[in-house]
């Protein structure tokens, strides 16, 4: 309701906010009916975070969400929900450098994305000195797999899934042996990283990737939470409480 009102007014009159980073709602006065401070703040919170109230607290862990597509070298069209790797990488540097942050919790619900961007994030997380715990909720598909296993300890919700399937080439692809060799080398990089940072074997990973009997229009395998743990890809089944407990235990150990 508020968003519609804002759009209507914005089209009709010019808005010059005092602070350009703060979206200014031209209906503020009319809507709040005199109790401005409280209501205006709440509407901004709803606008930005989709909730009426957000708990105010200090924590020594940093939460990073990897959602939608991992966006890499190409800016994706607006129908995609994306995580921009060029924004996550400096955040990881800040986490590693900040004396106030003791650990990193990475929450994944991703459909995959750019291979090199995903590998860059995974390598960054794997090389961090501070404890990193990952939690896969909903889905941690494709390039989400190396990101999930890059953490020191990985968790997956029992209802979450991880799809392992071959990498795809986009754009113009020449039908020559070199294209296939390049694709295979790229797959080797991903498989090499996953097997080095988890307990799954190279052979098992390749067999999941090339499985022809499971997906209707593709080859590959969908691993549900328990399957991902059984094959050694993910360390444990768990949710937020387990992931946080593990992270706090690592932080205490590091002290």
């Amino acid at each position: 309701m508020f968003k519609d009102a804002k759009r209507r007014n914005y089209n009709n009159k010019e808005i010059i906010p005092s602070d350009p980073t703060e979206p200014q709602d031209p209906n503020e006065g009319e809507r709040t009916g005199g109790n401005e401070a409280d209501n205006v703040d709440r509407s901004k919170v709803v606008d930005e975070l989709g909730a009426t109230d957000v708990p105010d607290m200090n924590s020594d862990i940093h939460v990073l969400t990897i959602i939608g597509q991992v966006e890499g070298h190409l800016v994706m069209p607006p129908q995609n929900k994306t995580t921009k790797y060029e924004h996550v990488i400096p955040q990881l540097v800040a986490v590693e450098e900040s004396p106030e942050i003791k650990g990193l919790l990475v929450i994944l619900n991703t459909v995959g994305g750019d291979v090199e961007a995903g590998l860059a994030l995974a390598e960054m997380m794997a090389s961090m000195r501070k404890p990193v715990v990952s939690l896969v909720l909903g889905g941690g598909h494709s390039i989400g797999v190396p990101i999930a296993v890059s953490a020191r300890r990985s968790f997956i919700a029992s209802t979450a899934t991880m799809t392992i399937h071959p990498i795809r080439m986009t754009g113009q692809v020449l039908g020559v042996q070199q294209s296939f060799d390049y694709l295979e080398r790229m797959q080797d990089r991903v498989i090499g990283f996953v097997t080095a940072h988890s307990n799954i074997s190279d052979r098992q990973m390749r067999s999941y990737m090339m499985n022809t009997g499971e997906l209707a229009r593709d080859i590959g395998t969908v691993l549900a939470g328990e399957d991902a743990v059984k094959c050694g890809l993910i360390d444990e089944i768990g949710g937020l409480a387990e992931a946080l407990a593990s992270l706090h235990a690592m932080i205490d150990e590091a002290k």
Partner: protein
Amino acid sequence: MLWSIIPTDVVFNGFEQQEDLQLLDYELESCPCRLRRLTDGSFGLETVCSTNPKHFMQRNLQPGRRIFLSK
């Protein structure tokens, strides 16, 4: 190179139209940023172009944030 469960034609649908994309370099809170013009005339924060990691931790400098500038 994409490794995603979403088909590439769905992911890149409308990619060609992005040539019309209107980008604006702007400084927000002393941080150089790149904004993308949205259909309603407002702007969305596209990229933070800073070398200071602190800028990337600021809540009001996260990608997708809507920004209203004077016309």
